[in-house]
């Protein structure tokens, strides 16, 4: 099966500076997320994570705060480099790339959806969707085709009549739709969603999840971080992180399953 992304034995340590010796410190400490190492305090946010992300998968990463899921997302998003290990994205090892190359990777291979939407306030809906195109390699000017493509994306997320609105004129759900459209503009390998429904009421949250599911059904690989179980249920696979390691992994549906992800809805349709 073709992999969209793969992490192998990923570790990420943060150096907090020199350690102050503590009387009675013992070897057990090295298993805690904070450990003293060669006289320095290291935060071991990731301690050897290996996960495969097949193409077309929909993965929910869960875990309490401090479990390492945010760090994992930062590495997956090309915003941070792992201390050791490999991160292969679209057949290319991006784990030790420099800032310029990583920027390119973020631009071309990753679509971001954030909890707080992260739209640029002074831009219209359409300009926000077009934003990643500004940083394409070679910086070509926007062509008519690009414009058409962005218009189609806006229509697809149901904002075809709000193209000239600014983010503050839109509801939270509408802003998140703009973010969804923006995440797809460069046709990325993976879509990273960081708590995409965290700031939304449940009804709007479901709207957004429907949208993500529709994208996944088209064959998009989606990696979503969430701590809500009912949101995680939309995914085909749930990964629970704890203390910088994969604690539990459950696959609820096969990779290429296209059936309705919501169990009671599935049942309701079967009863008809």
């Amino acid at each position, binding site marked *: 099966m073709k992999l969209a992304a793969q992490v192998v034995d990923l570790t990420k340590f943060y150096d907090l500076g020199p350690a102050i010796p503590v009387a009675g410190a013992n070897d057990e400490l090295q298993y805690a997320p904070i450990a003293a190492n060669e006289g320095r305090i290291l935060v071991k946010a990731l301690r050897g994570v290996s996960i495969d992300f097949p193409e077309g998968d929909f993965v929910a990463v869960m875990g309490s705060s401090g479990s390492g899921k945010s760090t994992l997302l930062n590495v997956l998003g090309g915003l941070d480099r792992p201390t050791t290990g490999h991160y292969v994205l679209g057949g290319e090892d991006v784990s030790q790339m420099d800032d310029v190359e990583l920027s*390119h990777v973020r631009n071309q291979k990753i679509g971001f959806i954030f909890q707080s939407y992260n739209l640029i306030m002074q831009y219209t809906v359409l300009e926000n969707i077009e934003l990643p195109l500004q*940083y394409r390699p070679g910086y070509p000017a926007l062509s008519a085709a690009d414009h058409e493509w962005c218009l189609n994306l806006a229509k697809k997320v149901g904002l075809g009549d709000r193209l000239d609105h600014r983010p503050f004129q839109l509801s939270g759900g509408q802003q998140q739709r703009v973010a969804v459209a923006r995440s797809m503009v460069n046709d990325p390998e993976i879509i990273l969603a960081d708590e995409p429904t965290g700031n939304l009421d449940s009804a709007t949250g479901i709207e957004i999840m429907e949208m993500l599911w529709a994208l996944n059904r088209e064959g998009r690989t989606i990696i979503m971080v969430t701590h809500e179980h009912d949101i995680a249920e939309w995914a085909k696979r749930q990964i629970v992180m704890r203390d910088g390691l994969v604690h539990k992994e459950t696959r609820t549906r096969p990779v290429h399953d296209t059936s309705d992800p919501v169990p009671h809805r599935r049942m309701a349709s079967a009863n008809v």
Partner: protein
Amino acid sequence: MSFSRLIRTVQLGLKSLMLHKLRSGLTMLGIVFGVFSVIAMLAIGEGASAQAQKQIVALGATNIIVRSIKPVEGSSSDTSQGGTPRYGLLRSDFRRLTKTIPTVLDAIPIRELPREARFLRHTMNCRLVGCTAEYVAINHLGLLKGRFLTDADQQNLANVVVLASDVATKLFPTEDPLGKALQVDSMYYTVIGVTADRTPSAGIGGSLAAQDFNKDLYIPINTFRVRLGDQIFTPKQGGMDSEYVELNQITLSVKTVDDVLKTADAVRGTLEKFHTQKDFAVVVPLELLKQADQLRQIFNIVLGSIAAISLIVGGIGIMNIMLATVTERTREIGIRRALGARQRDIIEQFLTETVVLSGSGGLLGVGLGLMTPYAFLLIRWVTFNFILDTKRGTLSETTRMFSEMQPTVALWSLPLAFGISVGIGILFGLYPAHAAAKLDPIEALRHE
């Protein structure tokens, strides 16, 4: 950076600046006034030196002026005429200079004395100048009426006089002076011409004191010699004071500017051989011109530097605002970085913004700078009408200079000031732009 991308970045910068119109406008004002003051200061400096240069040019760039000066009291002055001090240029000097130095084209001997002129009831303190026909050409003197002195007047020892404009208006307020008899001391001269107005020269250091040519009476130098003589008696307390001077000045003109300096050297050498005392001075307007040029440069540098300080203050204002902007837009920077902007893209974005800010400020400043002469006119008008409250004629030398000065905007100062403003934008924008680019995208995205 490709052209389309440059346009895009500039548009982006404009858009961000337009979000905070008041803030951008106020920031820009710093640069506007900085650029304006650079241009204005240079214009005023230019105006002042242009005035000095005009005076020097009026003396003639191809002229060499030799003046008699009274030696310091107590030095070895020649008193062969029974106690009468005897000094200055001699007619033999004049002949020697004109005969022996081949580059000398024209030469005029000049003799001057302060005298009271009278016509009917009108009197005026004038300067009686004995000169030759060439005087008019060498000093670029215009004639209002009649004619100037001629060689025939010299040979005939004619009792004729040419009036300077002020004399004509003061002594002949209602009638035509031509043909009238003007009285100087006990002698009468027939008025044959009136010269045009001539700008008074300020003292340019050395032996050239400030001169007001508009109170001159020109008579043939031969007539001067015959009528007044070389030995002049002036009444003083308890007797008479006398001195013996043959010529007060010799003005020489050469063909080209290149000849001036070596001719001046030759003149100096010749005169030094025959004068035992230091009773003459050689004034070369060309040298003065060069000195004035240096003075102007110093002036420009000093005034320009003072103005540049205000530009720097404007730059600091820009830097301050841009740093605030970077903090304010941390989130935006994070978003852009997450979506693929390199550090360089962020630097370019913020740098473009500051350059657009300072550049447009610079353009406005250049526009204001072009108004300098009018602004100066206004200031002068206010000064003379409301502050100084003086009548013309009681003006001191400096105020007269102020009243006659015309600031001229130096064309080269426009691109210079504009360039500096853009440079200031880059210089003071670099740090904020770098600070923006160095932000950690993860931190920036989390920023509230």
